[in-house]
């Protein structure tokens, strides 16, 4: 391994984390759900995500504390989010929804309600008490160096230090993200569940019409 330092993200890293969230949400496509679902511009999306991360609310994919980053020569190379699901008694579903409610105006939210039934077809509730991997992004200059695996391993080590009872790591990926699925399989993850939307408009709003949940025993 080259000289990468792994550490938890700090407030000063928020710009990179916003890029991480946006790129991970796009899953290799041009479809950004914050734009398609809420009608936000790219700039409004960046502002909303920045405000959310600044709140430092733990326990979901939009939590600053969930991210570990790999850094080299003072520059961030990769970020991987993970948390212990339901650790404080609240689901990541509810925490993420609350953070979005805090920053999005009612008219944008009402716009999204027209397609909420379609979006929910790809929802898989996260299991309480597992380590859930959230959003993952590696800067293109640092790919092929196993940074995702290094960061996930560090998340597992840190989570196990908090609770030895943890036995599983889960991750959800869009079905089009074959490189990620292969990488997780190589790492030992097994496919656990797949959900599929039959709606013809789903890919107007999300990167793909299937989502796969994978798990790793630790």
């Amino acid at each position: 391994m080259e000289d990468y330092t792994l550490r938890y993200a700090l407030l000063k890293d928020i710009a990179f984390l916003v890029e991480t969230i946006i790129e991970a949400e796009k899953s290799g496509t041009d479809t950004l759900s914050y734009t398609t679902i809420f009608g936000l511009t790219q700039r409004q999306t960046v502002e909303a995500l920045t405000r959310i991360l600044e709140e430092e609310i733990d326990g979901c994919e939009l939590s600053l504390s969930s991210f570990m980053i790999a850094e080299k020569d003072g520059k961030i190379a990769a970020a991987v989010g993970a948390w212990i699901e339901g650790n404080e008694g609240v689901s990541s579903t509810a925490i993420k929804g609350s953070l979005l409610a805090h920053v999005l105006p009612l008219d944008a939210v009402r716009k999204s309600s027209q397609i909420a039934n379609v979006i929910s077809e790809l929802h898989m509730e996260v299991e309480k008490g597992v380590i859930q991997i959230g959003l993952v992004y590696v800067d293109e200059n640092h790919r092929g160096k196993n940074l995702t695996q290094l960061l996930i391993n560090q998340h597992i080590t840190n989570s196990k230090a908090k609770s030895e009872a943890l036995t599983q790591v889960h991750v959800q990926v869009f079905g089009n993200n074959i490189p990620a699925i292969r990488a997780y399989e190589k790492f030992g993850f097994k496919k656990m569940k797949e959900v599929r939307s039959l709606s013809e408009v789903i890919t107007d709003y999300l990167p793909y019409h299937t989502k796969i949940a994978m798990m790793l025993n630790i």
Partner: protein
Amino acid sequence: MEEKINEGLTTIFREVFSEPKLTITNEMSSKDVDKWDSLAHLIMLKEVEAHFQITFKIREMAGIQNVGDLIKIIESKLNDNQ
């Protein structure tokens, strides 16, 4: 007041989660309703704010474990407004 909150919430929940016969309970949370994802949670919270003319603080919302917690916060905000 409890009845008024229950009525309002039932209407909102049935609409947001597309379940016309849904009955809310204090223990109910996202794991109990199929269509309760983060988007539905967001819509539900914004509609609750609009319906009861209240504004949640982020730390109030992020601490809501179930419908019972939500009812308590609404009740306390409506009491403050009186």
